C-alpha cells in the first residue's frame, strides 16, 4: 500500500496543531518582541480549563455539544492566566533589558506547571480527556482520517481566517498592526498600546486553548507537563515561518509537522540512511530543516526583514 497520503495527513494534522500554538508566540513577539516561553503552559492550562468544563457538564452530554463549551471554558482559563501574566509579570519589566522578561517567562512556565500539579485534582498523573467515538473516516484505502485529526484540520484554517479578517479589517486589528510597526508613533496617534498588548496575549491564549481541546480529543489525555515539548515545537514553527507573521506561524507549523512525519516514514528507506531514520531522528531532521531555512531566509519563510529597534 501507499503510505504517503496517510503520512501527509498525519503531518498536516500535527502541523495544524503546532500552528495554532505558534500563533501565540508570534503575536506577542510581533508586538512586544518578547518570546513568551510560558505560552506552552498557557496551552496546558487551556486543556485543564476545558476538562473542568467537561467534568462539570452533566454526564452523557453529547460531545458535539460539549466541545464548544469546552473551548470557551479552556479559553477563559488560558486568557485569564495569560493576561494576568502580562499584567503582573511582563508589564513591570517592559523597559527592562530583553533578557529580564525572557528569564521571567521561563520562571513563570515552571510556576504554572507546579501550580497545576499541586492544585488541580489528580493532576500529578495524566488525566483522561473525552475522545471522539465512532469509526474514523475512510477516504481511500490508503487514507484513514481520524475524527480528531479531521477536527483540527477544519478548525485551524477557520481560526486563521477569523484572525486574518480581524487583524486586517477591524479597528482593533489595524491598531495592532500599527503598534507592531512602531509602538511610540502608534501611541502618539492615540492608540492605547497597553490594551493592544493585552489583546495580543489574549488572542494567543485563546488559540492555545483551541489547540489544547484538539490535542486532548486526539490523545485522550492531558497532563501538566504537556506544554513543554509542544511549546518548544510551536516556537520552532513560529521561527520557521517568520516570527511576527501570523500566517507564517501556520505555514511554519505545517512545514514542521510534515517534516517530522515524512522523516519518520522515509529517511530510513534511503539506502545507507537506515540508522538515521525513524521516530528517534524526527526532531533532528526537523531542526536540520529549520537551520537550512534560516540560512537561506534568516527572516523565516514568510517573515519580513524589519529594522531592528532594540
Amino acid at each position, binding site marked *: *500500500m501507499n*503510505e504517503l497520503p*496517510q*503520512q501527509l495527513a*498525519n*503531518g498536516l*494534522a*500535527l502541523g495544524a496543531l503546532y500552528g495554532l500554538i505558534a500563533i501565540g508566540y508570534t503575536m506577542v513577539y510581533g508586538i512586544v518582541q518578547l518570546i513568551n516561553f510560558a505560552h506552552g503552559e498557557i496551552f496546558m492550562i487551556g486543556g485543564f480549563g476545558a476538562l473542568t468544563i467537561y467534568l462539570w457538564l452533566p454526564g452523557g452530554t453529547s460531545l458535539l455539544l460539549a466541545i464548544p463549551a469546552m473551548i470557551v471554558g479552556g479559553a477563559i482559563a488560558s486568557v485569564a492566566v495569560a493576561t494576568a501574566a502580562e499584567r503582573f509579570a511582563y508589564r513591570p519589566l517592559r523597559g527592562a533589558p530583553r533578557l529580564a522578561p525572557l528569564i521571567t517567562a521561563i520562571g513563570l512556565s515552571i510556576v504554572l506547571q507546579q501550580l497545576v*500539579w*499541586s*492544585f488541580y485534582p489528580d493532576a*500529578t*498523573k*495524566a488525566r*483522561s480527556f473525552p*475522545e471522539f*467515538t465512532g469509526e*474514523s473516516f475512510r477516504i481511500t484505502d490508503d487514507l*484513514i482520517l*481520524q475524527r480528531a485529526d479531521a477536527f483540527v484540520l477544519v478548525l485551524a484554517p477557520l481560526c486563521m481566517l477569523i484572525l486574518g479578517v480581524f487583524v486586517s479589517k477591524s479597528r482593533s486589528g489595524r491598531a495592532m498592526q500599527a503598534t507592531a510597526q512602531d509602538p511610540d508613533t502608534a501611541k502618539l496617534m492615540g492608540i492605547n498600546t497597553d490594551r493592544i498588548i493585552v489583546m495580543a496575549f489574549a488572542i494567543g491564549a485563546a488559540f492555545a486553548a483551541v489547540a489544547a481541546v484538539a*490535542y486532548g480529543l486526539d*490523545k*485522550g*489525555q492531558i*497532563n501538566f*507537563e*504537556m506544554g*513543554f*515539548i509542544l511549546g518548544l515545537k510551536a516556537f520552532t514553527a513560529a521561527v520557521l515561518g517568520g516570527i511576527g507573521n501570523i500566517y507564517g506561524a501556520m505555514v511554519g507549523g505545517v512545514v514542521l509537522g510534515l517534516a*517530522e*512525519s515524512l522523516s*519518520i*516514514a522515509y529517511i530510513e528507506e534511503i539506502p545507507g540512511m537506515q540508522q538515521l531514520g*525513524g*521516530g*528517534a531522528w*524526527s*526532531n533532528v531532521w526537523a531542526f536540520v530543516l529549520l537551520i537550512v531555512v534560516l540560512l537561506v531566509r534568516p527572516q523565516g519563510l514568510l517573515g519580513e526583514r524589519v529594522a531592528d529597534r532594540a
Partner: protein
Amino acid sequence: MRNRSLLILSAVVTTGALTLTACGSRDDDKGSGDSGGKTTVVIGVDAPLTGSLSPLGQGIKNSVDLAVRTANKENVVPGVEFKIESYDDQAVPASGQANAQKLVGDKEVLGVVGPLNSGVAQSMQGDFAKANLTQVSPANTNPALSQGDNWAKNEKKRPFPTYFRTTTTDVIQGKFAAQYLYNDAKKRKVFVVDDKQTYGAGLAAIFAEEFKRLGGTVVGTDHVTVKETDFSSTADKVKSKGADSVYFGGQHPEGGLLSDQVKKVGAKVPTMGGDALYDPAYISASGESNDGDISTSVGFPIEKLDTAKKFISDYAAQNYKDPYGAYGGYAYDGAWAIVQAVKNVVTENGGKVPSDARAKVTEAMGKVTFSGVTGQVGFDEFGDTTNKQLTVNTVTAGKWKDVKSSTFED
C-alpha cells in the same frame, strides 16, 4: 491540596528532625548504648514520587513504609528503630544521583530501596558502591546493572557489589515475552518499538533476538522519544508493514499512546510490552480499544499468592492514598531484606549496630534468605533475585488480567 501541603510540612519536619538527629548521632556513636534508647536505622527510598510514573513510585514508597512499620511493631531487631527517608527522582537520572549523594551523606542510612527506572539506577550505583551502601531495586530489570555491560557476550561481571534487586532481569523477561507471543499467541510478524532508554531499548533488543530465534520475523523497528505524544507516523508504519503484533520496550505513558494510535490508524493488532506497561495507568492512556494488549510482569500476581495476603490486608489497613501497584510487593521484600541483613549484623555484633555497619550490611545482604511477599527471596552471586517467576497479562474489559504464570525456562 491538603495532601501536598502536608507533604511539604512533613518533608520540612523530617529533614529538620534528621539534621538534628544527625548532629546528635555522632555523640551516640562514641558512647553507644549509654542512653538505653533505641538506635535509629534509616532505610532510604528513591522513586519517582511526582510526574507520570508517580503512581508506581508512591506504591514503592508506601510499601517500604509498611515494611518499616511492621519491623518496628514486631521488634524484629531489638534495640533498633527503623525509619524511612524518601526522595523523589522524577525518573530523571541526574535527580537520582543527587538523591544518592544525600542518602550517602546521612550516616544513619544503612540501606536504600529504589529506584524504579534502570536508567536512574545507573547514575546511582557508583555513589552507593563508593560508600559501601546497600541498594535494593524493586523494579530495575536491565541486566547490565548487575551483570556488567558485556553480559550478552557471556562475560558476566558484577560491577557494583552493593547493588541488589528483587525483580528478575530483562533477559528473562524479554525471552519469556517472545516465547509467549510466538508459542501461545501464535504471532509471527512483530513490529518492535522502543523509547531509547536503558530499560526499553534493552528489553526490546532481547525480545527481538529471541523472537527471531524462535522463527518469527521482525517486520520493522522504530524508536519514540519520551514525553512526546504523537506517534501516528510510527503507527502508520506498523500498518503498512503488515505486522500482526507490536512489541514496545518502554514506559506506560508512551506505550499507552502508541497502542491507541496504532489502533486508530486501523491496524487491529495487539501491543505487547514489559512490566512497565503492567499498570492501570496504561489502560487509561491507551484509549478504548485496548482489549487484547499484553504485558509481562515479574513474579506471580501477588493477589493470588498466599504469602502476600498479610501484605495486602496490612497495606489496605494503612489507608495509603495510592495502591501498592506493580512493584509494591518487591519493594516490601527489598526493605525486608535490608531489615534481615541489619538483624544478622546486629546479632553478630552482640546486639549493637557496629561502626562499619554499611559494609557489614552489604556483606550480609548476599546471604539473606526468607519467605517474602513475592515468594522465596534470595540473591545470587550478581545480586539478582533467585526468583524467576513471570506472568503474562492481557487487557480484558478495561483491566489487566493474568493469563499465564510460570517459571522461566531457557
